[in-house]
């Protein structure tokens, strides 16, 4: 430790003001504080502070994401080999997925951190740890077949337009990772939806008879339009409800496994970092709306049992990792209940009533991101009214 510290101290003047590489000051500072918690002491107010900081908080979110990510990598290989009928071991499946995923992660982190550090340097503030999470969330919600330049473009859009123009981490209105996904979804729809994008299969490689890369969301959408009634056969090609829970189905890289995502949820809730209120109310909102539609009945979407909404598409991933982003979510404790409930409700509404968008959770979260300040405003107003009422009483 002493040796490393000495090396850092030796390098420091080069990157400090007046040094040769002072234009990299923010970058150096980010790396230095990553390696060493600074030797600062409290200057005003309380003399002692809690051990928690933003680095630890963000790092724990990354840990919570890992089960879903690792499973997603394996699943990519698994889906590929299932589609092509080739035999593969667990490791081969994982390796295949790793090779598909790693470049996307590298591009996302590279572009995003590059922009963050440039902004930090330009505006003279320290690099915020928020992108550690965003940079991983973006690849996890991409289809594996996405061209890398699109990942780069979407990341740049999310960081600059989604975050920095609002004043950087902590000030953004929308969830940056979903902003990136939305950007691609609207700008490059063919690459972001349909049956082909989820499992990358190079041209010329034959697939087995009957293979379809369509997701359950896609199938149920088509069935509803055609008047085909709901049945389990509408689940993604050759899978059961149990596969949907385990995650052995096609989908965005890390969104498929309910089990892996729930492990992440447990980590987030146990450490107190993710809001269980939001997660629970989102699930309740979806079950409520799904239940109402079940009662109404009519087509495949109406008739799909409400709890199926929880295990198909990106619902679980969105619920656990996207709704709980504390910056873009409602910030008041009561507001969190309302915010989550409407996300769940809207997700189901969009899925069922909007044939143009097979998945609803992304739209629902972004929409509620926009409404979160309004929810908070009304909660704050009720606190204010309580105080005014006390005067009159």
């Amino acid at each position, binding site marked *: 430790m002493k040796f490393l510290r000495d090396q850092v101290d030796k390098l420091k003047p080069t990157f400090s003001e007046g040094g040769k590489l002072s234009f990299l000051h923010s970058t150096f500072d980010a790396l230095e504080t990553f390696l060493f918690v600074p030797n600062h002491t409290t200057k005003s107010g309380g003399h002692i502070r809690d051990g928690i900081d933003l680095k*630890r908080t963000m790092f724990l979110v990354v840990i919570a994401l890992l089960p879903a990510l690792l499973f997603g990598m394996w699943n990519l290989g698994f889906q590929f080999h299932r589609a092509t009928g080739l035999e593969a071991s667990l490791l081969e499946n994982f390796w295949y997925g790793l090779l598909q995923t790693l470049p996307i992660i590298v591009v996302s982190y590279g572009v995003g951190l590059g922009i963050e550090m440039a902004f930090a340097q330009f505006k003279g503030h320290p690099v915020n740890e928020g992108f550690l999470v965003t940079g991983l969330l973006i690849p996890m919600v991409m289809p594996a077949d996405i061209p890398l330049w699109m990942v780069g473009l979407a990341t740049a859009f999310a960081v600059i337009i989604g975050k920095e123009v609002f004043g950087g981490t902590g000030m953004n209105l929308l969830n940056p990772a979903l902003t990136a996904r939305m950007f691609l979804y609207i700008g490059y729809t063919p690459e972001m939806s349909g049956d082909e994008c989820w499992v990358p299969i190079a041209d010329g490689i034959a697939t087995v008879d009957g293979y379809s890369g369509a997701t359950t969301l896609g199938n149920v959408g088509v069935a509803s339009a055609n008047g085909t009634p709901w049945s389990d056969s509408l689940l993604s090609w050759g899978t059961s409800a149990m596969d949907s829970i385990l995650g052995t189905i096609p989908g965005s890289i890390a969104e498929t496994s309910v089990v892996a995502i729930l492990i992440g949820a447990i980590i987030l809730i146990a450490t107190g970092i993710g809001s269980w209120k939001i997660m629970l109310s989102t699930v309740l909102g979806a079950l409520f709306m799904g239940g109402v539609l079940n009662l109404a009945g009519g087509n495949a979407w109406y008739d799909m049992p409400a709890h199926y909404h929880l295990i198909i598409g990106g619902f679980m991933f969105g619920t656990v990792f996207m709704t709980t982003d504390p910056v873009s979510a409602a910030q008041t404790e009561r507001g969190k209940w309302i915010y989550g409930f409407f996300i769940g409700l809207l997700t189901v509404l969009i899925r069922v009533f909007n044939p143009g968008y097979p998945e609803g959770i992304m739209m629902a979260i972004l929409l509620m991101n926009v409404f979160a300040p309004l929810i908070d405003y009304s909660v704050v107003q009720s606190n204010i009214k309580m105080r005014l009422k006390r005067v009159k009483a």
Partner: protein
Amino acid sequence: MGQNIKIKRGMDIKLEGAPSLDIHQANSPATFAVKPTDFKGLVPKMHVKQGDKVKAGDCLFADKKNDKICFTAPVSGEIAEVVRGDRRAILAVKILADSETAYKSFNTSGFVDKSREEVVELLLASGLWPFIVQRPYGLLADPSIAPKAIHVSGFDSAPLAADLSISLKGQEANLKTGFEILKKLTEGKVHLNVHATKDSSIYNSLEGVEKTIFSGPHPSGLVGVQINKIDPINKGDVVWTIKPQHVAFIGKFFETGNLDLEQTIVVAGSEIRKPAYYATRLGASVSELLMDNVSNDNVRVISGNVLTGTKIAQDGYLGYYDNQISVIPEGDHFEMLGWLLPSYPRPTLSSTFPLFKFFKKTFKVNTNPHGENRAYVVTGQYEKVMPMNIMPQQLIKSVMAKDLELMENLGIYEVIEEDMALCEFVCTSKIDVQRVLSEGLELMAEES
């Protein structure tokens, strides 16, 4: 007995170096000081100059805004120095103490029958008045105002705080007289709030006060929290608060006619060799208390507790309102990957440190903030340590935005800095909550 109120949101920060139950007699230090900086917003008007002789109870300086509010000498002696800082602001008035304290005598006989005005005059002249703190904003009490109520927190729940049943033992009679005087100051109630599991027998003989029993962790002992639960401050209300040890000063003064500010304080913290209670006097230099009593050089000496106290030098002076000295190590060292793999235990509210949070009993805490200042990201955190019916994060944000109307609507007049000290402690983004709130309170006080 009055009602029971349970405080659920909060936390006790358990630190190493808790005081033993012994009361030591501290050697009387050579110098004493009264620091105008202990009083919020005070501009002092000097009544003495260097070399003047004073008795205990003689006026050293007065409040420029209301020159009836006197700040008096805690001991007799010679004015050794008037310490000035930037722009000649007066930082401290130091007194070289006589070996025997000579008291200025006040005519307090027959105080039982004295009117409110006479009592106020005596409190103002004797320098006891500044012990009364006025809410909103935590200012010096305005003698021309009749407060809605007077609140006294009968216990201290802060880290390493004095157990008042020990430090005020033997002061029962003074407390009783003091409370009688308080009752003259308001037409409303005088509230005394005690803790369900802490010894409150020193208050047993009090009559005519409204007792409320609190339970639960810190900040249950903060008078602001108690007011919020018992009879919250509304816009336009004025209430006064005072600490029990200061009520005892008032009682003793009216009993004897002398300003005798002897008090028993706690000297504690992990760097103190003999953490215990020490009998000393208000305004005392802490040098005698710390001599041969501090285990290393790189320490922070705090007058008050670790959450709200003031940093002082090792030969500094006890703050006017403080009955506690906390000494903890400075945290001015780098910690490799400390955010990920902490190299020593630290107190925390966060379940990301399950071993520290759930299994560690007491902590050797230092002054490292364990991270850097960031914009607000995490939400719902302040609420866990804020028992008052107030939206803490929204309030702090409204102060940052200098939105006076919103600050007022969110109830800034219900809090002072100490009420939000725990919010500051738990803050992931390391926001200086108390400093920000202080700016807000100052703005509001200027406006009103």
